């Protein structure tokens, strides 16, 4: 009997629930086993180990993880597309499509009843598991944390709405079941994938941009599966596991994504109202999306294919940037034209796509990508020249070799930025070394952490400055002055409290030593401390260089590693950001909770910064490790090595050059 409510049909709703009951049952089984059963079994096992059990009772970390380990949007995304495909499957077969629309229900009712069915099939198992988890929390004495399962449920509701909106939108755009499925995943990941591909392409074509930058997804917010785990989790203090906070941006983020999902559902409804049912079985059911899809996919797919082949060509064509660029251009255009017509064949379901109209679009595509590549190559978009202003920078991390300095002083940052700009200005001289360098070179890696929470990274190969232009030599000297500054080496390279450190061990690595360890010796604490203090003295007198770009500079191939103990935890300058820039990939879809990550919003970063700093201060590392290649100028260090019997005299050492010891070469 038709419902009196104008948005709902009970018959269709009941039919959907009975036909697709397997979905919620399987989903419930998955959640129940992976969450509730898992928690129960872990807790029961833990009771067999009294110490561990008592410790667990203090924090209930196992219960927290048992729930939040399943705060993973990608699972919801998978389930949602499957359920949506099932409920709206009638749209993809001609006979069911015609018949369902001949029944006495209008599209408004079919659409809204379909949504009601999908949400019922999704929320019921989630709610059931939440209730079970709540009972478990209470039974296990974690009553104060019972909000955690319900926060998980709130996240699920937001994720459900978000992915439902995307699924409905793609359902109305496509005319086939399989293309709906494909479009759904394209929409979910296209921004992230496009950004990765473009970044990799930029790393081929732009001076200073390297593929390691591909994980700094600025458009991550357009990929809910990857963005949501990092911004809707519950923060726990890694050191103590006692503090549980919902991230400050979590609730607004959930609300925004839920609203986006509702908005997309509304758009899907409009598409459904105007959907021509004769497009059932078509690749794309909405006419205006065809050229968008064709050109968009062609553009993206050709860039992707070019990137893949480009990697292979990198080594073959590495010595001439112009040849490399022309090769990339030809590849991209050629692959693009081929892909364009292949995609057109798929859409029109015919091989006869050699028509004037399609040729016109193909020419447009070719022109666009040609212009795009040229603009990138000649830095029309200003990517290569992009350098932040000093006032916007919170911290800049500069790395040469194995040494990283973090500058936070405004003047130091400004000085460094001017050096960076000089390097950019020397692009013409340095470009041909970017991909292949037959002479010794060093890497300069730069990461700017801005006050708005964003970051900018660059990496340059800096060849041996001997024989290069005067401008380049001056730039190298300025850079090396920064790195080899006495105070910088002491405070950044060792520690701020370098004067308080006590040497407790050393390992000598002679260049021509046998591998059987027969030359290992032991030293007294006094000898070790003497060695360390001699090294510090050399630094103060400017005898030691932590890095160099003069390949001919003399340097010993032998080295030693000093272990230094601090009376209190060592705090590096990078404390505030070093834990946030851990290199953790923001492509991770399976993050289940947040401690500290590189993808946190500025709000969260600042909110946890002080807490983490305190935790690190309470539990930080008490030792520092120094790896030292002495130079002939390090007279105090060499003497100390002789005095302690590490070497007989300097003849025991192997004299080499900086180019051999800590510079790179591609030969």
């Amino acid at each position, binding site marked *: *009997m038709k419902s009196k409510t104008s948005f709902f*049909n009970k018959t269709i709703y*009941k039919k959907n629930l009975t*036909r697709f009951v397997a979905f919620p049952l399987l989903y419930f089984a998955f959640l129940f086993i992976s969450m509730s059963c898992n928690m129960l079994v872990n807790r029961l096992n833990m009771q067999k180990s009294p110490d561990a059990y008592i410790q667990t009772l203090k924090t209930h970390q196992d219960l927290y993880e048992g729930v939040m380990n399943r705060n993973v949007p990608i699972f919801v995304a998978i389930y949602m597309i499957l359920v949506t495909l099932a409920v709206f499957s009638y749209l993809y077969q001609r*006979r069911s499509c*015609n018949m369902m629309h*001949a*029944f*006495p229900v*209008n599209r408004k009712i079919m659409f809204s009843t379909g949504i009601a069915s999908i949400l019922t099939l999704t929320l019921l198992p989630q709610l059931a598991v939440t209730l079970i988890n709540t009972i478990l929390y209470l039974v296990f004495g974690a009553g104060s944390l019972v909000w955690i399962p319900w926060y998980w449920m709130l996240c699920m509701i937001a994720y459900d709405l978000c992915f439902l909106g995307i699924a409905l939108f793609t359902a109305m755009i496509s005319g086939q079941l399989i293309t709906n499925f494909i479009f759904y995943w394209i929409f979910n990941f296209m921004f992230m994938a496009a950004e990765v591909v473009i970044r990799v392409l930029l790393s081929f074509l732009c001076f200073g941009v390297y593929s390691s930058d591909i994980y700094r997804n600025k458009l991550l917010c357009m990929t809910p599966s990857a963005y949501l785990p990092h911004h809707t989790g519950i923060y726990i203090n890694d050191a103590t596991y006692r503090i549980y906070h919902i991230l400050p941006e979590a609730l607004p983020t959930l609300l925004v994504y839920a609203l986006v999902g509702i908005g997309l559902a509304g758009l899907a409804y409009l598409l459904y109202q105007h959907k021509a049912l004769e497009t059932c079985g078509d690749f794309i059911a909405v006419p205006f999306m065809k050229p968008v899809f064709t050109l968009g996919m062609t553009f993206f797919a050709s860039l992707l294919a070019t990137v893949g082949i480009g990697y292979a060509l990198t080594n073959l064509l590495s010595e001439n940037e112009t040849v490399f660029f022309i090769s990339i251009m030809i590849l991209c255009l050629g692959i693009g034209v081929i892909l364009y017509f292949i995609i057109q064949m798929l859409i029109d379901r015919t091989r006869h796509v050699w028509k004037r109209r399609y040729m016109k679009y193909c020419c447009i595509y070719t022109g666009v990508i040609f212009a795009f590549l040229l603009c990138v190559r000649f830095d029309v978009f200003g990517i290569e020249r992009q350098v932040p202003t000093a006032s916007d920078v919170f911290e800049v991390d500069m790395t040469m070799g194995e040494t990283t300095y973090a500058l936070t002083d405004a003047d130091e940052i400004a000085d460094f930025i001017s050096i960076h700009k000089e390097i950019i200005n020397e692009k013409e001289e340095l470009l041909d070394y970017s991909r292949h360098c037959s002479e010794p070179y060093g890497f300069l890696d730069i990461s700017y952490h801005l006050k708005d929470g964003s970051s900018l990274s660059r990496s340059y190969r800096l060849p041996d400055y001997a024989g290069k232009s005067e401008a380049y030599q001056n730039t190298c000297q300025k850079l090396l002055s920064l790195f080899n500054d006495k105070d910088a080496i002491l405070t950044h390279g060792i520690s701020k409290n370098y004067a308080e450190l006590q040497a407790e061990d050393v390992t000598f690595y002679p260049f021509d030593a046998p591998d059987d360890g027969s030359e290992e010796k032991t030293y007294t604490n006094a000898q070790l401390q003497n060695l360390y203090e001699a090294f510090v003295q050399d630094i103060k007198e400017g005898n030691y260089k932590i890095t160099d770009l003069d390949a001919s500079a003399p340097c010993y191939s032998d080295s030693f590693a000093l272990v230094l103990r601090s009376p209190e935890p060592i705090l590096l300058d990078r404390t505030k950001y070093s834990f946030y820039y851990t290199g953790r990939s923001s492509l991770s879809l399976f993050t289940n909770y947040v401690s500290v990550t590189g993808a946190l919003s500025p709000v969260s970063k600042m909110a946890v910064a002080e807490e983490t700093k305190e935790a690190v201060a309470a539990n930080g590392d008490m030792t520092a490790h120094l790896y030292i290649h002495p130079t002939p100028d390090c007279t105090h260090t060499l003497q100390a090595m002789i005095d302690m019997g590490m070497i007989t005299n300097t003849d025991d050492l192997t004299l080499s050059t900086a180019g051999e010891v800590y510079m790179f070469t591609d030969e």
Partner: protein
Amino acid sequence: MIQIDNVSKSFHGTQALDHLQMHVPKGAIYGLVGPNGAGKSTIIRHIVGAYRPDEGEILIDGENIRENASIKEKIAYIPDEIFYFAQATTLDMMHYYKGLYPSFDEQYFYKICKCFPMLNLKKPIRSFSKGTIKQVAFVLALSIHPALLVLDEPVDGLDPVMRRQIWSLIMGEVADRGTTVLVSSHNLRELEDVCDHIGILSHGHIILERSLDNLQSSVTKVQVAFDGDLPPIPEGLQVLHSVTNGRVSTLILKGQPREAQEKMAALHPLLLDVLPLSLEEIFIYEMEGEHYEVKNILF
């Protein structure tokens, strides 16, 4: 009952319906005929509200069918390719129809199921033969007691006994409730026993639409023989077709049979017979009179 005004529809550059005009009177059994690709199924899908025309409108009982659930409640539709839910039984579908159609008569459903003893109500429909699947469709459709029954190639796949049974039930609905029936087919012989209105569809538009009485009264087949040659045909009779074998001539005349017989009798033939015309013959000769390329229309 059904009024289609100036409806056009194109698919992927092909004009499927071309300013189609069609009228199905209330209570009529309207046969829509045409060759493959003429647009029969397309116009039917428009009538049941599945498709939307590019231009024109379709009125059922004076109301636009588009997104009109109240009108659709009065329409039962049996397509050429019938849809049922996967693993659904006849009973499942009965409950579904009962939920959607307020006029669904469950008692009538069980009553007419008895006319189909091979029909197992609890077995999945997909396990049935093609003919049995169609039987289920008819049982469900007739149980709605629709005001309009739309059938697309309805008895295709049914054995002659079952066909008769189905048509008998449909006629019963027509007689009892004044149901309007629109049936599409490419087989005139099948329709001539049941339809009282015919519409011929070709290349997306109706080229001829008449009641069967009108058709039959407008064309006459006579067989005449004269002593000598065939004399001139009297005024008022148009010869659509003529075949002479010796002295015997078979003439297809445009005009009413009685009038044609009287006028031909006035010529004092040796032999004069008025012969029955099949629907197919009527249309062939009618189309020739309309100067259509008959081979492009008929089958």
